[in-house]
């Protein structure tokens, strides 16, 4: 992709400094970043959360979010110095010459207006096209981005269109005025892997066709490898290194970059099921059907989880993974079928279960932020289940909380009296784990516990869960859409689609062909570090046989 594109410089950022306002003070969050982008070139910005990727991306449009300001350096776009340009002139650049594609298209399309009306807003505002002309152009872009029914889809409201389609519609919208530069801010992060591919392919196509320059922001290395000519790695508002994609992947120079590359290497040994046929599984889901109102969401779901083992339940959003967890915990009584615990039938609703039955099955949630009450001290968050289930009081309770904090590798004396808001994302998730452990369960449901975390932090959580499993002989049901996580910690895999189990078995078998076609689609859709992965895959399968349109 990098061939002969480098002509003249389009964007030149020098010593960019950005400050954010917090606690009545201005803090510098971007500390002097340089960036040069040529016409038609794609630059990948990667880093963990807090690295300043989005902030830099927006600064390239001369835009700072509320509570942020550009405090130093220069941003030169096509000969124009954006830091000194008046707001009205800056606004005239946005949407016309520099466009933005946001992370969540579902949240970034206005729910009150039709998609095509939002698409034509900028061209009409800038009087580039008349309405009918702009609509026809939109339809043409929809067709190029391979959206179904390009003539009609724009006249729907955002909620009537799927996430992957919306993301492509947003890319089309960014193209409306044929800008010189597009900022893609994590455009596929919120999507399922199977949907991600079609969006990646569409974005790459259209950027190539119009020779548009782009800044592609992501935290996913494998994704950026497919999209960018050059990769820049950021850490806490500073540049770590920059190199052409192939060179960066093969030969990263800095230790931090190497550590990012190495994250996916954690893998624990796979455990087999017990050979003794008399051993009963810890949890056994048998022929469960469930529905929300009249909408059936689970159809004849069955699988077993044995002691000390990790069963990963994978599938796209809406496949029924979390609903199955809700059935097991009794939050959603199933319509049909039963849940067995060590061979004994559990009452369908949690209300009818005994304290001991409730204690045995605990849950850890995806969003540690919202799963912990911000007004309650750590000692109480962890102490409450210990008190409720174990009847611990006073000194006993305190020493138990200390013990639990030790288990999750947080210094008890330091964290005992803190509030959740004083902790980082990874630490909060550790508190979530300690809270589950406080009930002394034999079985824990981990619902996407690492997907909101940065890779390095997620790695730490996975290692901790593995350690706890070995020490306490826990069984895990691990709900995830991330197959890399499955590879690293699962013993068995259950693949779900549309509320049904399509395939299940030991991990090594599941990851070796032949697969069920849906499993195959899932596996092949996970981006790989190879920069040619997407091109090869598209050649193999054809551009019209990916994502939602794929035949399985």
């Amino acid at each position, binding site marked *: 992709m990098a061939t002969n594109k480098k002509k003249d410089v389009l964007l030149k950022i020098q010593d960019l400094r950005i400050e954010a306002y917090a606690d009545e003070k201005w803090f510098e969050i971007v500390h002097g970043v340089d960036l040069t982008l040529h016409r038609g070139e794609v630059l990948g910005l990667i880093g963990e959360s807090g690295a300043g990727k989005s902030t830099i991306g927006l600064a390239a449009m001369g835009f700072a979010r509320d509570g942020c300001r550009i405090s130093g350096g220069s941003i030169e776009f096509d000969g124009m110095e954006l830091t000194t340009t008046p707001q009205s002139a800056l606004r005239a650049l946005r949407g016309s010459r520099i466009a933005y594609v*946001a992370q969540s298209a579902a949240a970034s399309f206005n729910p009150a207006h039709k998609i095509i009306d939002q698409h034509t807003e900028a061209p009409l505002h800038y009087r580039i096209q008349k309405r009918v002309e702009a609509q026809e152009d939109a339809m043409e872009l929809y067709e190029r981005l391979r959206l179904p029914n390009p003539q009609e889809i724009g006249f729907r409201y955002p*909620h009537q269109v799927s996430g992957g389609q919306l993301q492509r519609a947003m890319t089309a*919208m960014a193209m409306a005025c044929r800008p010189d530069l597009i900022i893609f801010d994590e455009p596929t992060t919120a999507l399922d892997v199977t949907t991600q591919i079609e969006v990646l392919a569409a974005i790459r196509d259209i950027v190539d066709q119009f020779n548009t320059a782009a800044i592609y922001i992501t935290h996913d290395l494998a994704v950026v490898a497919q999209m960018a000519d050059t990769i820049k790695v950021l850490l806490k508002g500073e540049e770590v290194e920059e190199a052409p994609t192939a060179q960066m992947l093969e030969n990263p120079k800095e230790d931090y970059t190497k550590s990012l590359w190495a994250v996916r290497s954690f893998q624990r040994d796979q455990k087999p099921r017990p050979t003794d046929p008399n051993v009963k599984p810890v949890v056994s889901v048998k022929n469960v059907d469930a529905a929300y109102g009249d909408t059936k969401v689970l159809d004849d779901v069955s699988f077993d989880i044995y002691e000390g083992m990790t069963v990963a339940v994978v599938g796209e959003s809406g496949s029924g993974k979390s609903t199955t967890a809700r059935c097991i915990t009794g939050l959603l009584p199933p319509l049909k079928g039963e849940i067995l615990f060590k061979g004994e039938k559990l009452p369908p609703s949690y209300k009818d279960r005994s304290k001991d039955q409730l204690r045995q099955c605990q849950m850890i949630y995806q969003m540690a932020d919202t799963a912990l009450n911000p007004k309650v001290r750590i000692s109480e968050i962890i102490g409450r289940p210990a008190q409720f289930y174990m009847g611990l009081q006073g000194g006993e309770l305190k020493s138990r909380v200390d013990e639990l904090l030790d288990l999750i590798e947080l210094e008890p004396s330091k964290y005992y009296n803190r509030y959740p808001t004083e902790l980082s994302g990874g630490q909060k998730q550790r508190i979530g784990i300690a809270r589950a452990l406080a009930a002394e369960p034999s079985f824990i449901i981990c619902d996407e516990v690492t997907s909101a975390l940065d890779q390095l932090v997620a790695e730490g959580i996975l290692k901790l869960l593995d350690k706890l499993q070995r020490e306490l002989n826990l069984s895990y049901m691990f709900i995830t859409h991330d197959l890399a996580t499955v590879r690293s910690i699962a013993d068995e895999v259950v693949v779900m689609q549309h509320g049904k189990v399509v395939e299940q078995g030991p991990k090594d078998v599941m990851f070796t062909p032949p697969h069920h076609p849906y499993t195959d689609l899932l596996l092949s859709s996970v981006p790989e570090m190879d920069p040619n992965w997407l091109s090869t895959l598209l050649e193999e399968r054809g551009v019209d046989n990916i994502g939602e349109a794929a035949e399985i």
Partner: protein
Amino acid sequence: MGDIVSLVTKRLALGLLTLFVVSILIFFAVELLPGDIAEAVLGQSATPETVAALREQMGLNQPAVIRYLHWLAGAVTGDFGTSLVSGERVSAAIGPRFLNTLFLATYAAVIAVPFAIILGVIVALWRNTAFDRVANVLTLTSISSPEFFLGYVLILYLAVRTNAFPAIASLQPGMSFIEILHRTFLPALTLVLVVTAHMMRMTRAAIINLLSSPYIEMARLKGAPAWKVITHHALPNAWAPIINVVALNLAYLITGVVLVEVVFVYPGVGQLLVDAVSKRDFPVVQACCLIFAATFILLNLLADVGAILTNPRLRHPK
């Protein structure tokens, strides 16, 4: 569309049920008032025989439930019985006055609702500026002052000192529409001052609440000017809370005007209600209460329907 029809039908049924419960409350609350209606009508000099005869004539000897059912059956057809004081049909006494109250409420609403919403949009656009603060202080002052006080202040400045508008809003037959508008301007303005703050602040809050949404940032990044971001991108999504507050205030304009009508001697239901309460004219009190309750329920129903209709997810199901 089928979804919306069924939703609206459900709300309507629920509204009727609420009204039914309210009618029970009104009837039996009046029933609980101390004193005997027959004695009250006849006064202290009445002999026990005449009281008994009147009780018999008024049907007061029947059990309360039977009387309630009679009353309800009448109320459904618009017949609220006869006034104990004047002997007139209650519906005939209330009818024209209720129309007057509706007129005054409409007059005030036609000014207040657009004014409050436009002002709310402007202060949202110029949030945290001097204009925003001044508008907030002024509207808060007007909502915090009792309406009779506001009424007298307006009378002092706009009627007594400048003679621009009449201080008494009495209506005579044969007045032209313009004349009526002029005559009732002061009570209408008082009501406008009372209800504007609430609606304006809700409009401002509902819009500002949305300004951190990703689609608002997107609109900015598409180069939309600030006023367009507010009116085109934020306002259409802010209607639901605004409509609810507007409905509450409209209901207040009809049911809360008692004091304003008294101050300006305006011949509306409020005046009638005050008279009826002081004279223990129970059928009139009951009828007024029921009409007020129905107004409240109807306006809230309309607000619900309005909120549904402005939600694209409900208007255009998948």
